[in-house]
């Protein structure tokens, strides 16, 4: 993965902004600005899909933003038994943090409190170093930290289940053994891709955002970490109050149209919702954004979806720039 994908950051895409509308929905000539993060995939398996999902929901809870949660996490997809290391139903989750150290800390806490505790579960690293398209980073401790819960009864085992010798820990618990991989591969990933959906009212905005999230969730390697994949409290950097590093994005608040000097909304906009996307590579984030734009535009202006925009910081903070016009190129051909 390159730090600056040419197809998405090509300045020519916006140097001469041309009006772009798909199905009546205007696409702003702007870009989403994203940042490097450290990420991993964990595969949680359990006796039934239900219990795997319980553990995954618990592990990815309170993980909407690194600002207050330590990490951003979400469920990537469910896994059939033939796609998991132990042949049981599973769930793949992705976790993103700002540093390897913080990611390791969050993995230890969340797996320890949410997966180790959940009946019948086991957990495995889900990044295959041999096939990962994202650059590899450090290995994060998994069982090597949790093993101490075994109080001396834990057992390590090296097994080759098809991906080379792997070290597992077997920790005695009251329903048998909690099995987990010794450590998990992590990668250099991308966080903070985003779309702003500007709609006539809340019904229209929710419908567009839900359709976009549904489309994005069909893609691998990405998560939308906010509740339901959608966030209403988009933020800007800084605040008039000392000590607050972020505050409401007044430029997109419909009640501040007449008050904020920076408002970007017209009078017809009654509701704005944002979708934040974290992905293992910039290509994954870009693909998800394209899918989201496509789904929202499918509803179009007739359904109240007026504009699609994106959040950035002037392009000076994050190395990944996802230009909406480049991402939406070609999407309108099918609707012509």
């Amino acid at each position, binding site marked *: 993965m390159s730090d600056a994908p040419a197809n998405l950051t090509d300045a020519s895409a916006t140097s001469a902004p041309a009006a772009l509308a798909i199905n009546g929905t205007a696409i702003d000539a702007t870009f989403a600005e994203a940042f490097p993060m450290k990420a991993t995939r964990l595969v949680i398996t359990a006796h039934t899909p239900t219990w795997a999902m319980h553990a995954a929901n618990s592990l990815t809870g309170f993980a909407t933003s690194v600002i207050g949660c330590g990490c951003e996490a979400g469920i990537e997809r469910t896994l059939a038994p033939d796609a998991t290391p132990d042949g049981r139903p599973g769930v793949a989750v992705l976790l993103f943090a700002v540093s390897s150290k913080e990611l390791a800390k969050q993995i230890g806490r969340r797996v320890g409190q949410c997966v180790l505790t959940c009946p019948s579960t086991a957990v495995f690293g889900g990044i295959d170093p041999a096939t990962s398209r994202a650059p590899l980073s450090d290995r994060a401790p998994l069982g090597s930290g949790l093993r101490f819960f075994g109080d001396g009864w834990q057992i390590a085992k090296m097994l080759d289940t098809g991906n080379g010798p792997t070290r597992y820990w077997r920790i005695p618990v009251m329903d*048998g*053994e909690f099995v987990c991989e010794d450590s998990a591969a992590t990668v250099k990933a991308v966080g903070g891709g985003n779309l702003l959906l500007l709609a006539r009212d809340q019904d229209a905005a929710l419908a567009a955002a839900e359709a976009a999230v549904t489309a994005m969730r069909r893609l691998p390697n990405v998560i939308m970490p906010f509740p339901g994949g959608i966030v209403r409290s988009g933020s800007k950097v800084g605040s008039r109050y000392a000590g607050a590093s972020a505050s409401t994005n007044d430029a997109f608040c419909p009640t501040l149209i007449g008050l904020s000097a920076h408002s970007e909304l017209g009078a017809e906009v009654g509701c704005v919702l944002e979708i934040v996307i974290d992905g293992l590579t910039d290509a994954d984030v870009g693909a998800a954004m394209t899918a989201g734009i496509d789904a929202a535009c499918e509803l179009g202006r007739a359904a109240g979806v007026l504009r699609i925009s994106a959040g950035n910081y002037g392009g000076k903070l994050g190395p990944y720039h996802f230009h909406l016009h480049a991402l939406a190129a070609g999407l309108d051909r099918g609707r012509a």
Partner: protein
Amino acid sequence: MSTTTLRLKTLPGFRVDAAALRPATLASLSVAEIEHIVLAGGNESCEVGEVFEVLRDEDAPAQSPAETARPATPDGYGNSNAAPTLVIDGAARWLDRLGAEMDDGRLVVRGSAGDYCGFRMSGGELRIDGDTGHFTGCEMRGGRLTVNGDSGDFVAGALTGDMEGMSGGTLTIRGNAGARLADRMRRGLVLVGGNAGEFAASRLVAGTVGVAGELGPHYAYGMRRGTLLLARRPAHRLPPTFTNGGQGFDVFWSLLVRSLANEIAPFSQWRAQRLPVRYTGDLAVDGRGEILIAG
């Protein structure tokens, strides 16, 4: 990759140390250079050219039907084109230390071999079509060693006085193994398709040992950790220092069964749904070892 073949032409008349015959080393030498390699044997020595006819084939590695039938291994050596290959044709028990400290390539021995085959080997693949002597895979650290016949004592064990036996890799004996199988073994996988002699898996530190046939007395003696897999309940009673291992190890068993899927029968035929009977011990020492009886 090239295949070098050493075909026996004259018996040396004494035991020969064959540790110098490593596939990767010989692949980088010319036929003439190989013929002048000196092989020691006690107080005597001989040159390779005096004992073997040396042949070199740059393109087509030799394969036996057994090789072609074998599935590709995770380390890639199932594909004979992936590594330099050395074939020793007509080997016998007078050839000691074959594949000793080998770290790459494929060494195929057509015939039997002597003692210390695969001693401290750390990589590559060593396959012996016949029987081997004592200390096969002794202190082995990695790679894959397969003996299609029987093997002597101290397979995967430690040298006398050393603290650790085998510490990595996969060792398969399709026939029977002698006494002290996997003595002091610490890591890796040992599978025996036939019987094992007395003191199998004795003083096992960790790792996995599987025996398809019968066990001699005193198996698992002093076993600290690790797993002893048995395809059937042994005739000799379980050691008194082992206790009921309970239930609830389904996930580990499914991982273990999956790791054995490409190995020899009956281990490759075990299924995750059919849990073995588990015993834990040896309580005289650490007590975290286990005997799993799958039969």
